[in-house]
């Protein structure tokens, strides 16, 4: 076995070096590979028995939404070090942006594709809108303000009936169409799945490029020590606004997709639990590592929506009266709590720590010896 690994070692080293140079291509290859593997995996016994392949593909698509939210939030929390507890607000704003101009409510039907960009821009705008007055805040104080913002947005949407349909939200949202080639439907989950994979690839590439850019270096500095960043010549105001804008843009972008996928937006979909699940994913995956947080979100979503649901059916079969009353799906809140507490106690750097943190921990161990 080890001989086999050794034989592949030079090949692996070479491919690692290659993809370090061509990271965007690497992301693309990885996303395509995962995109092909996931549906195949869902045919393998323990998974295949739980639900049909189409149901799995649908679940993966929704998991992708959470993964992208985590990747976007990671820009704010992991890169720039700004705690944002109201991230779902931007997700909502993207969704409503699309639903308002692509549903029977106003009988406007703008096409999906350009609205993806518009949703991102609206998100970025509100990101700056939230960021600007909170620039002087850090840590707990920033968390409280963003938490408030995250609550305000759904409440405003709830009470602006003439524009948002109030409690009912906006239904019958248009699904994406590739004119003359493909119409997305609710029955066939595959087009949404492929689109989601493409979006993941795109956003991952953008995020990696940003991380390597001057903007990303400025975020590093601001996160590490804002004062030192300032005396090194970083414009910390602009840097923090950029983080808020990029994070919010990603949420807005994904929000448009989410609205088109569910064909409905309603205030209920954007409650605090969405924000906290994104935070939990970032913490679980490893702050600062885009791939890690995406994986974290993926795991959290699959556990809560597949396995907790299966637990319901399983327990129902036992016919125990008390347990029948229990809805295990409600346990997702407990799940987030456990994830956050356990991770903070046992492994604050996350399952897949960002490179920089990993190095410090290694070095400090070495210094102790």
């Amino acid at each position, binding site marked *: 076995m080890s001989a086999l690994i050794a034989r592949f070692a030079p090949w692996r080293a070479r491919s690692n070096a290659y993809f370090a140079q061509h990271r965007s291509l690497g992301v693309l290859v990885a996303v395509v590979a995962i995109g092909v593997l996931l549906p195949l995996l869902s045919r393998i016994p323990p998974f295949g028995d739980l639900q049909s392949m189409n149901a799995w593909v649908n679940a993966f698509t929704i998991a992708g939404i959470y993964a992208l939210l985590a990747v976007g939030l990671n820009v704010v929390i992991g890169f720039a070090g700004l705690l944002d507890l109201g991230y779902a607000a931007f997700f909502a704003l993207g969704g409503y942006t699309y639903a308002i101009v692509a549903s029977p409510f106003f009988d406007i039907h703008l096409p999906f594709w350009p609205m993806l960009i518009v949703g991102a821009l609206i998100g970025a705008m509100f990101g700056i809108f939230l960021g600007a007055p909170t620039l002087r805040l850090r840590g707990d104080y920033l968390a409280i303000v963003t938490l408030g913002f995250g609550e305000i947005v759904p409440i405003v949407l709830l009470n602006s009936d003439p524009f948002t349909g109030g409690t009912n939200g906006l239904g019958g949202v248009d699904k994406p169409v590739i004119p003359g080639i493909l119409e997305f439907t609710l029955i066939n989950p595959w087009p949404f799945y492929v689109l989601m994979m493409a979006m993941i690839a795109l956003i991952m590439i953008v995020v990696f490029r940003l991380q390597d850019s*001057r903007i990303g*270096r*400025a975020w*590093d*500095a601001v996160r*590490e*020590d804002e*004062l*030192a*960043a*300032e*005396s*090194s*010549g*970083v*414009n*910390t105001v602009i840097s923090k606004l950029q983080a808020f804008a990029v994070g919010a843009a990603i949420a807005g972008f994904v929000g448009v997709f989410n609205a088109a996928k569910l064909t409905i937006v309603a205030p209920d979909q954007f409650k605090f639990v969405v924000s906290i699940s994104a935070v939990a994913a970032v913490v679980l995956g490893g702050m600062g590592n885009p791939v890690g947080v995406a994986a974290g979100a993926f795991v959290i979503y699959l556990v809560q929506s597949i396995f907790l649901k299966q637990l319901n059916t399983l327990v129902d079969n036992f016919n125990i009266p008390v347990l029948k009353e229990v809805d295990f799906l409600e346990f997702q809140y407990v799940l987030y709590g456990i994830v956050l507490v356990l991770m903070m106690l046992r492994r604050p750097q996350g399952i897949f720590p960002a490179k*920089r*943190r990993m*190095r*410090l921990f290694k*070095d*400090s161990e*070495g*210094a102790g010896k």
Partner: protein
Amino acid sequence: MSLLELKDVHTYYGAVHALRGVSLKVEEGEIVTLIGSNGAGKTTTLRTISGLERARSGSITLNGKSIEHTAPHEIVRLGVGHSPEGRRVFTRMSVRENLEMGAFLRKPGAEVQADFKKVFDLFPRLKEREFQAAGTMSGGEQQMLAIGRALMGQPKVLLLDEPSMGLAPILVEQIFDIIKEINSRGTAVLLVEQNAMMALGIANRGYILQIGEVTLEDDCKKLANNPKVKEAYLGV
């Protein structure tokens, strides 16, 4: 025209009147030291120069250009390097990355590479630890890094906030030798120190700061022989 000049600068922290009309000058090629006890306003003076605090009144000019309303990152660009109190290195970044951050506003290229060499020349210890996380280094090494980082911005005037703080005497001497070396290579230095003896030993001129006001200004040799200074700051 002085390289750096403060005229009647007043700075407040909320209601606290921290600087009560500070005036001082740093000329090209000089080492100027600012001496005073805790809370006299030494650090506030440096922070006000580099734009981290705002002067409520008074003027600050760099080469005759007024900078009291300029943003901190612009002040760095104009040639003020600040090695802040408590070193403030980026602990999770490597030594190399810290120095790169110091050159954040400059175009990467041969000139920056040459400055890396200069800094490593000045501080061979940093070269040895180039890829080590800065937070794992000793206080002295971190102080060297903080100074090196400020130098990477090609400052005309370097503001040093208590470079001797918390360091062993032998290291303090080493750091002060390096400050002299930096100065001899053409960078003016404004040195804030509690270690008045050492500071007066290397500086050309000195200012004594008391409760936000400059109470004495003189040639360093004369300051060191001034009976009042001797009693209050040199412990003789």
